[in-house]
């Protein structure tokens, strides 16, 4: 079965091509079901391979299939191939599974949209590219997928291209991503040529792994940093995060699938995939972890002051992505992937829930105009509630397991630091606060919607609520795959990924910490030195601390938005300046706009004037004038144009002959 991994991306590709070509000829229903079926078949294939894998011993769980030798010239050979291992399987299952649910949901959500068929075509294209990205066996395949998801993301953000804001958002996403991609591409080139200078011309992951020892420290830091620049763009990290909130202009299922569950996590996947390189680059690791935690914290603060429910979720996504980068940055790759998976479940769910709320509220997005929806849309309410609990990290829900694993690793890993842990834990509390601010604001209190909207509030159809329920189930159950040792679990997830990511050494990492390798302050280190029992106690303590932080966040939200609804207003009144700054996202967009966009525009204007109009047009006009002058001279003898052509030919001939005959003489 593992030999058929290429089927995973193939199904959506077939769906894309079929619907793209014949979509206009068949009914809407057929288009949507073909699209869903294609993704579902991918999911089935990956599950089948997964079960086959479980039969195998852990170290035999790698397959590579080279479908075709794509570019072969001389010593350089770039095969087009796929790689099956624990990591790509987890990714493939998550992507295709979540994508399938969102496809189904979209049937209901997009029902009345004139672009219904186009939507499914582009969605299938996206799934195809994303699955190529995660199953490819070389950097080239990854890059193809990487660009492909960028393209489909651009198309889908700008899906309602008639709206200026949507097409602008699409462009912004594309351009910001290009900046990151540039770094990524540079990284690929640098790696390729550096390895090539050692005689290894390859971009295949396995072969890079084998010859990674040929690279020296500085080079590897530079290469991994360039890759991380790519990840910054794709996964919306500081400073390239600005496109993601704007990307919410796309249809909500798109926000859910691309800008929450799958595409934006590509950067995390890439770092996990290249973990052997990152592990050799401590400086980059530090940068990754630092940027990650700063992004997590910073985005969470913006989340405080947004009223648009999708914007809140967007900043929350950025923040959670920051968490994942903290995980991979401290070397806890499997924790990062674990959080990636659980996040795909609960954030996908949150967005779909938001879509369901919008559906109920006739497209309204402002939470100030909602409230009291608890009774009216019960399924949405309950599933949204579960997702909020999961993202807040309440024990028993998936987010708890994955988030706490990250927090623990941030603390205990040799690459970790207590500051990282503190900021991350604080962010956890803030996350709980703003998520429940949203939750209470939407579902509790009095309904603040206008009368005509109020009238129409209704629960979404089955085709939308069933995916919500399935995702809600996953948002709870997903976490039980990775119960940490300290809670008596076996952390199956970590074990499963261990052959690829070298995980499963939680204890070893802690031992490092106790040996004083980490930058953890000595007081904490001495606590850790208390031994195994002491370490477990420490882990429990930290866990409790983050749970308490989350509960405090929820309580504050409850106080402010349910119990005493006047409080937020007072708060805003007390600190008007602060609120304004945060509400305006720290004016980062304006700053970028001023410095880069206008700067570049201005530079472009200058270039246009000097180069285009001055030099190029000057040359073109000049050449034109010259030719006309020559032509004018000729016209005295003859008329017509063929003569000019012939004259040009003669001139050319004279130059060619003159050069060839006389050049050797000099």
């Amino acid at each position, binding site marked *: 079965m593992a030999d058929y991994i290429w089927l995973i991306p193939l199904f959506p590709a077939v769906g894309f091509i079929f619907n*793209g*070509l014949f979509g*206009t000829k068949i009914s809407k229903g057929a288009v949507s079901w073909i699209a869903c079926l294609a993704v579902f078949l991918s999911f089935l294939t990956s599950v089948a391979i997964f079960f086959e894998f479980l039969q195998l011993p852990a170290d035999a769980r790698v397959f590579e299939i080279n479908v*075709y*030798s*794509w*570019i*072969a*010239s*001389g010593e350089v050979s770039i095969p087009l191939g796929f790689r099956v291992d624990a990591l790509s399987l987890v990714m493939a299952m998550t992507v295709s599974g979540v994508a399938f649910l969102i496809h189904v949901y979209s049937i209901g959500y997009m029902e009345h949209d004139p672009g219904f068929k186009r939507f499914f075509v582009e969605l299938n294209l996206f799934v195809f590219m994303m699955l190529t990205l995660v199953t490819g066996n070389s950097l080239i395949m990854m890059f*193809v997928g990487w660009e492909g998801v960028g393209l489909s993301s651009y198309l889908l953000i700008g899906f309602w*291209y008639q709206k200026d804001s949507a097409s602008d958002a699409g462009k912004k996403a594309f351009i910001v991503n290009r900046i990151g991609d540039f770094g990524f591409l540079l990284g690929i080139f640098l790696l390729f040529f550096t390895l090539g200078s050692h005689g290894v011309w390859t971009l295949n992951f396995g072969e890079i792994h084998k010859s990674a020892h040929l690279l020296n420290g500085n080079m590897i830091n530079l290469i991994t940093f360039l890759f991380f620049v790519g990840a910054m763009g794709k996964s919306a990290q500081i400073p390239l995060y600005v496109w993601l909130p704007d990307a919410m202009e796309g249809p909500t299922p798109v926000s859910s699938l691309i800008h929450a569950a799958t595409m934006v996590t590509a950067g995390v996947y890439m770092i996990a995939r290249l973990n052997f390189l990152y592990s050799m680059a401590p400086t980059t690791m530090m940068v990754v972890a630092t940027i990650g935690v700063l992004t997590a914290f910073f985005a969470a603060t913006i989340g405080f002051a947004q009223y648009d429910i999708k914007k809140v979720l967007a900043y929350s996504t950025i923040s959670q992505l920051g968490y994942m980068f903290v995980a991979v940055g401290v070397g806890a790759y499997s924790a990062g992937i674990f959080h990636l998976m659980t996040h795909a479940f609960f954030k996908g769910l949150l967005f779909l829930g938001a879509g369901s709320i919008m559906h109920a509220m006739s497209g309204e997005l402002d939470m100030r105009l909602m409230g009291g929806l608890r009774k009216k849309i019960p399924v949405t309410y309950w599933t949204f509630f579960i997702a909020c609990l999961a993202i807040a990290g309440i024990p028993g829900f998936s987010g708890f397991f994955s988030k706490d694993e990250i927090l623990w690793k941030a603390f205990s890993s040799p690459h970790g630091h207590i500051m990282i842990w503190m900021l991350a834990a604080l962010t956890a509390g803030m996350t709980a606060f703003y998520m429940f601010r949203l939750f209470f604001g939407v579902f509790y209190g009095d309904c603040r919607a206008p009368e005509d909207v109020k009238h129409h509030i209704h629960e979404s159809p089955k085709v939308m609520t069933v995916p919500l329920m399935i995702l809600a189930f996953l948002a709870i159950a997903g976490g039980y795959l990775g119960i940490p040792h300290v809670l008596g679990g076996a952390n199956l997830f970590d074990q499963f990924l261990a052959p690829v990511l070298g995980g499963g050494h939680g204890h070893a990492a802690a031992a490092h910490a106790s040996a004083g390798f980490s930058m953890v302050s000595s007081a904490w280190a001495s606590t850790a030195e208390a031994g195994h029992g002491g370490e477990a106690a420490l882990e429990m303590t930290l866990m409790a601390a983050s749970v308490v932080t989350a509960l405090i966040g929820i309580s504050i939200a409850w106080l402010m938005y349910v119990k005493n609804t006047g409080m937020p207003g007072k708060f805003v009144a007390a600190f008007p300046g602060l609120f304004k700054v945060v509400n305006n996202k720290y004016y980062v967009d304006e700053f970028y706009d001023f410095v880069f966009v206008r700067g570049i525009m201005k530079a472009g204007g200058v270039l246009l004037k000097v180069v285009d109009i001055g030099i190029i047009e000057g040359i*073109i006009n000049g050449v034109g004038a010259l030719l006309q002058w020559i032509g004018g001279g000729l016209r005295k003898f003859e008329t017509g*144009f*063929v003569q*000019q*052509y*012939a004259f*040009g*030919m003669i*001139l*050319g*001939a004279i*130059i*060619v*002959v003159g*050069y*060839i*005959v*006389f*050049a*050797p*003489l000099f």
Partner: protein
Amino acid sequence: MVVQIPEMDFGWIVPEIAMTVFAAVALLLTLFRKKNSTWLFVEAMPLVGAIVALYFTFQTWNGNIDIFNNLYTIDNFGVFFKGLSLVILILVTLLSYRYIDREDMARGEYYSLLMFGTLGMMIMVSSNNFITIFIGLEVMSISIYILAGLMGGNAKSVEASLKYFLLGAFATAFLLYGIALIYGTTGMLDIREIAGYVNSGNFMVTPTFMAGLALLIVGFGFKTASVPFHMWTPDVYEGAPTSITAYMATGVKAAAFAAFLRVLFTAFHPFLSGWTYMLWILAVATMTLGNITALKQDDVKRMLAYSSIAHAGYILIALTVGDRTLSSTVLYYLLVYSFMTIGAFAVVIILGRQGSPNTGIESYAGLAGRHPVIAAVMAVFLFSMAGIPPLAGFMGKFYVLTDAIRGGYYWLAIIGVLNSVVAAYYYLRVVMYMYFKEPEAEIGAPDVSIGSTLAIAISVVVVFYLGIFPRLFLMIAHTSSAIFM
């Protein structure tokens, strides 16, 4: 005195004989066909002829023999280009069926001349003798002079024909003069003999000889539409019937490049390094001028003409590098280029109407909304020309630029890349019109026929195939160019 004539040689030129016979028969058939007859014999001739010829051409693969006292050569290089010319003939015939009825062109003459033109190409690419090459070139050229003007009632077409003829005759004179000078200094017409003589050590380079070489470049430069011998191209390509434009842009260019490559890499390879700068400048000028001028074009047909000039520039990059082991790149590029160009012109044809060719870019506005499949295939061809993976055009450019880098021509590679960027602009502009503009006027039903559908379908499949699985044909191109090793 008994003259020895080896009779068995004729077995090797069955494809050429077949072409001649079918062309002559097609010509006679039209004469005796009644008006309004629904016979399709004439229409069938080029297809049947090409398939027969193609079959026999493949039989001669790995033949490697000189026949008719070395006037004619059967080798894999020739077979490759003969095959390519015949495939181009098939595609052009397919997309002509509806078109020539629509434009009311003389059918018998049209198909017959198409076949004669192909015959010329076949002769031209399979000889090592200057005289034979020249005869092939003339057979091809004269057929095309007439074909370009076959749209009798259309002044532009006649003008194109006349311009092409006048300038073509002019270029032929250069070529012939070059051959004469080389013959005068070496006393030889066979390029392999010349190669042997040049390398023998008792050869003294004289300016006359070098002038002969330079004039050859002028002559071939004209046929391949390279700057500065390209001026005729836009006018002629625009004025000629679109199917013939496709034929000129692919068949003529491929055959001319084939002969050019053969002459250059066989006989004059020792001198190549001496004029690297010359070819360098020609390549850069051809690419840049083609691309920059194409930017300003609002007529798709004319834009494609400039783009064809630019593509000649990319091929010249490979010639500049001058590495004989890499000449397969040229073959591959021409293969790829032929399919995407014919495809694009086929779309131009089906969007036209009788009397209104609709080649202005505004006629493409909103095409995606009305005819999504046509817009999609056009986008595929344009993307391929722009060199976007995974389409064939990307592979072609990739190999050319890789060659340049391997040969140490970094600047050439950089200029090539910059040019692709410029080119992407005007290709994507058409795509932009098709997908994002609202149509200005109602787009009627496209003039689709089975023939044009087939031609487009074949081109699309090949463009994808060559882009995604370039290996097989690259190997074939490699084997074909082994004659230079």
